[in-house]
């Protein structure tokens, strides 16, 4: 066991050996690693997950290390190394392997070099591209004298003819920029182009503006092109960081709007671990930024595991339950198919829309019933029993869903209101400091209690989603008992917080609230996590 434990430690810290370790392990061993890692290593509860919050600058530093490594190994500029890494989705090993194998083709793919080389190789390229597509021929022909042409473009024509930017057709522009391909455009167009790529398309891979030119702008070039627009460049850097984060399975970007923090959580990165743990993490920017590393739901959905939580949210979102309601409460007009709800009255129905008259029981036309005194004489014993069974079944399943959904939604609503309670509590705390002789530090118990209530309400909310999917057996009963305990404890504490304060009872209230606040996590644990493995 101890060797197993060391193994997991290695895997945790030594990222470079990651793949090798996985090859050695078979599936079950790596699943066990997760348990070992969490419990004995950190001496914390099994539901607590080790994670680290990183700021954008910290991630940039990580990127910087990778870039430095590559630029050191290949002997290239850091900007070039960055583009190479980006093209290989930040997979250093693969890049090194391929680069050592064929540096030219890797550079071409990364948009660093032109595919056409002067002299010897040019004829080869011409031959291959010529046969592929006729339109390529012209560019290949140009490439024949590629080097000469670029040189020519770079030096003399400035005097002969004023430069006309091929994009904005402005001949008064004097400042131009070009990538290594020599496609010159005015600085203003480059600026507008990069801004549009970064802002509108969210693209960090900015190619040359010329048609079919695959050359990519380096960070330095982008910065120069954007000029004074520093916010666009910041966005560009953020996009690069996001790309880096999305390529690394141990990292996740905080899903809260405009938050730029990243969370590193290697234990929540494997799919198999998600069936036993719920990796709830928070980012360093704001304590409210809690999210699940496994499924990106921006809330603490314990005790429900990711798969079930997703299933439940999906169920609540789509219209399947609306359809269920319609199915159990309505019938369709057999002529025009409009949906009809019978909310009283006799069985002689007249469709509001097409005026079709029919019998609610047999759905046949009313004219055939004649004067049958509102009782259907075409009553088919079996068919009607079947119909009623189907209807009551779907009604029962609907009711079951609504039972859980209402409680789920109720707790969500209450948790939202707790936020409001927060501000009220603050006022109350001030008041308490004045009326009784408690100090600021002594009234903090109120705030703690509100936090606890909020946390428990979130958990309670998800226990209802879990209960919906639990099979009916002894364990479910146990689960429901625990759920009830927690619910009661939360309601009691909630009531205490809301109660009015008078100077005499303040101390007693403090005692009670503190007592409940301390006890709540104990109940909370028993509710959620003894049963995690159930689903």
């Amino acid at each position, binding site marked *: 066991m101890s060797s197993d434990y060391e193994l997991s430690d290695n895997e945790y810290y030594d990222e470079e050996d990651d793949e090798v370790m996985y090859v050695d392990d078979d599936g079950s061993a790596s699943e066990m690693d997760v348990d070992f890692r969490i419990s004995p290593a950190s001496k914390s509860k099994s539901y607590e997950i080790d994670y680290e919050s990183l700021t954008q600058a910290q991630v940039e530093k990580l990127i910087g290390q990778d870039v430095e490594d590559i630029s050191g190994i290949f002997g290239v500029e850091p900007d070039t190394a960055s583009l190479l890494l980006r093209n290989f989705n930040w997979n250093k090993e693969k890049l090194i392997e391929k680069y050592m194998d064929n540096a030219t083709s890797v550079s071409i793919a990364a948009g660093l070099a032109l595919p056409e080389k002067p002299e010897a190789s040019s004829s080869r390229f011409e031959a291959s591209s010529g046969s592929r597509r006729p339109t390529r021929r012209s560019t290949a022909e140009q490439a024949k004298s590629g080097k000469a042409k670029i040189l020519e473009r770079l030096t003399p024509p400035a005097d002969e003819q004023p430069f006309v930017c091929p994009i904005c057709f*402005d001949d008064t522009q004097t400042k131009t920029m070009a990538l290594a391909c020599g496609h010159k455009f005015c600085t203003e167009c480059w600026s507008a182009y990069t801004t*549009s790529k970064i802002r509108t398309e969210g693209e960090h891979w900015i190619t040359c503006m010329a048609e079919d030119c695959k050359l990519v702008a380096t960070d330095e070039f982008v910065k120069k092109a954007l000029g004074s627009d520093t916010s666009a460049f910041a966005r560009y850097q953020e996009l690069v960081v996001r790309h880096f984060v999305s390529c690394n399975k141990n990292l996740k970007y905080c899903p809260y709007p405009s938050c730029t923090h990243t969370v590193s959580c290697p234990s929540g990165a494997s799919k198999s671990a998600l069936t036993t743990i719920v990796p709830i993490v928070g980012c360093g920017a704001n304590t409210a930024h809690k999210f699940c590393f496994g499924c990106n739901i921006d809330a603490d959905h314990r005790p429900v595991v990711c798969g079930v939580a997703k299933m439940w949210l999906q169920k609540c979102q789509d219209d399947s339950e609306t359809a269920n309601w319609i199915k159990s409460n309505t019938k369709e007009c057999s002529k025009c198919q409009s949906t009809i709800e019978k909310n009283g009255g006799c069985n002689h129905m007249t469709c509001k829309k097409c005026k079709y008259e029919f019998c609610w029981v047999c759905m046949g036309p009313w004219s055939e019933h004649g004067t049958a005194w509102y009782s259907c004489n075409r009553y088919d014993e079996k068919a009607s029993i079947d119909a009623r069974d189907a209807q009551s079944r779907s009604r029962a399943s609907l009711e079951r869903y609504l039972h859980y959904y209402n409680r789920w939604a109720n707790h969500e609503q209450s948790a939202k209101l707790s936020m409001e309670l927060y501000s009220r509590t603050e006022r109350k705390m001030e008041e308490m400091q004045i009326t009784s002789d408690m100090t600021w530090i002594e009234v903090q118990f109120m705030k703690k209690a509100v936090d606890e209530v909020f946390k428990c309400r979130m958990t309670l909310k998800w226990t209802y989603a879990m209960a919906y999917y639990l099979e009916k057996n002894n364990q479910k009963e146990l689960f429901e008992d625990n759920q009830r305990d927690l619910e009661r404890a939360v309601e009691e504490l909630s009531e205490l917080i809301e109660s009015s304060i008078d100077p005499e009872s303040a101390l007693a209230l403090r005692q009670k609230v503190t007592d409940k606040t301390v006890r709540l996590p104990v109940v909370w644990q028993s509710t959620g996590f003894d049963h995690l493995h159930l689903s």
Partner: protein
Amino acid sequence: MDARLRRVNKEIKDCKSDEASNITVDLVGNSPFHLKGSFLGPEGTPYEGGHFQVDIVIPDSYPFQPVKMKFITKVYHPNVSSASGAICLDILKDAWSPVLTLKSTLISLQSLLCSPEPNDPQDAEVAKHYMTSRASFEETARYWTHIYAGGPGKSGMAKGGVDTKDEVAMAGLEKAHVDKFEALGFERSKVIDVLRRLNYRGANVAKLNDDRIVEELLK
């Protein structure tokens, strides 16, 4: 002056001055950002002789984002929606480059008519027709060109009068096939619709038995 406006004005001027290409660009209203382009159907294709009009909208971020184009003239082509005129062409999407112009884009549309890409279709039914029976597809495309784009009609077809549209030829079907199912008592328009949907053309006719068609017709 605004760079976008200057560029568009220059592009319109360029198109006007170049008469050899037979490509025109005209303003729709007062704004230079909503235009109507037109070009002739390429020679040696079913679209030859047709005059095709394209609706052009120039977005605010032009030329850094692509122009929006769609056919006003109905075109029977795998990469053009036969209902809406929407065009499936890479340079109108991710392969756009700011150096491309209205003229070069219209020329690209012209060459799209020369070389359809049935594997990346906009209109799946037309693409199926193209894949199963090229000759029948070309005949239909020629008929559409004749009806909608003012192209020359096939000598045999013109007999029925230029203005009356032959629904059967429009859908690229054989008159005998439609007559056969109509004789079974189904509405003519429904027969045409079903046969078109099932791609009842060329080699496919042998694969689809009559029961399958009737089943579809009864739905």
